[in-house]
């Protein structure tokens, strides 16, 4: 359902990769590997529609994603390096806005459950500026608990700054997503075995 064809990426003057292609179907996991600076984040951003590729095409259900825009956004979740959490809003408010931006179930009950799942429910009413780095990441990742019905998840280094419990929680969410037929594109420096879905690897960099 997600196809990449002859993708090429340039950052500044450097050519990071070219001629990259793959097809991802239901229940499949794509792990992007490579050393620092090899273009993993750029590839994920291209797949999410944030960065323009230098050549090639990305297609979702057969249609190019730059033609789909918010229609693609309704079926895809991207969590990048930045936690995308506003300092001035509380943890709960941040989750609510993020959920509504992706048309997810943003009811009070669902949010409460999601925050509990990620272990930050006790901080729900705290403005995000008072959170630690790890707590911010967990706030950002709480969306995953609400996003079961979105077919495609694109996660860039989701396990960064998380403790063992949180890593296990995210792993379990990802595994459940794959088991239910969802798709996942993932980069991670940590070797975390998702334990579900058909895993494929792409290795970048020479």
């Amino acid at each position, binding site marked *: 359902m997600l196809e990449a064809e002859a993708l*090429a990426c*340039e950052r*500044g*003057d450097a*050519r*990071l*990769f*070219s*001629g*990259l292609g793959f097809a991802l179907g239901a229940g499949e996991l794509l792990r992007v590997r490579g050393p620092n600076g090899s273009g993993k984040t750029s590839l994920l951003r291209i797949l999410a529609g944030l960065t*323009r590729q*230098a*050549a090639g095409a990305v297609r979702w259900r057969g249609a190019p994603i730059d033609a789909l825009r918010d229609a693609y956004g309704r079926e895809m979740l991207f969590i990048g390096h930045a936690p995308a959490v506003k300092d001035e809003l509380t943890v709960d408010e941040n989750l609510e806005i993020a959920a509504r931006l992706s048309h997810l179930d943003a009811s009070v009950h669902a949010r409460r459950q999601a925050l509990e799942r990620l272990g930050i429910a006790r901080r729900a009413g705290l403005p995000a500026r008072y959170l630690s780095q790890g707590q911010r990441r967990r706030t950002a990742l709480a969306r995953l608990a609400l996003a079961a019905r979105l077919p495609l998840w694109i996660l860039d280094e989701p396990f960064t700054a998380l403790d063992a419990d949180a890593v296990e929680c995210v792993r379990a969410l990802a595994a459940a997503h794959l088991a239910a037929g969802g798709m996942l594109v993932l980069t991670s420096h940590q070797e975390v075995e998702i334990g579900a879905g058909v895993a494929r690897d792409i290795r*970048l960099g*020479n």
Partner: protein
Amino acid sequence: MTTAQTILDRSEQPGAPIWLRYASPQAFYPLAGRLIPWFAAGAAILCVFGLYLAFFVAPTDFQQGEAYRVIFIHVPAAWMSMFLYVVMAFWAGLGLVLNTRLSGMMASAIAPTGAMFTFVALWSGALWGKPTWGTWWVWDARLTSELILLFLYFGFIALKGAIPDVRRSDRAGAILALVGVVNIPIIYFSVQWWNTLHQGASVSLTRAPAMAKTMLLGMLVMALAAWMYSFAVCFARARSIILERERDAAWVESMRGKT
């Protein structure tokens, strides 16, 4: 996995139509190089002829005396300043739509020349104003619009200069240029309105000629000279931009090897 070849844009793909093929930097570079001397020569000849018409053939204006002759520089410069802005916006917009590299380079090449003509139009307008109306500056609709046009050029050049990434710079500049081009008639109209309300500035720089034929001819010849000059200079600038941006391409490297 990565190869050393340049990523091909539309103009370089095999099977591109002839007109699009010259939109590739590699094809454009030598073509421009051959054309520049012709445009430069044409500009020089026309300029000499135009100035001869301006200073020796065109009659003395009975109202303004000899000082009016500066319109032979002022009017062509003003025409070129506006024309070049539209051309610049066109190339920039084309690059935005077709994603070709040369279009953005052309827009960058045109901007300084356009700004130069705008500056010349303003300065020559002031030179005309002083002997004619006694002041260096009047808030005439056209002069004021020229001043704002200069600001638009500066903005374009400044924005392009402030963005280190070339692709982003081209595309951001294109958006700005297009918004500016839409604004030019609005600005002119606004200033015209404002001008007619403020009865003090009831002078018009174009009211001068009930044009003698030789005056019109002189201005047209100078305008043509300016047009050829623009081609020559913009092509030369474009060539140097091409060399800078494509410096890693194989054809540039081989050229460097030859010299």
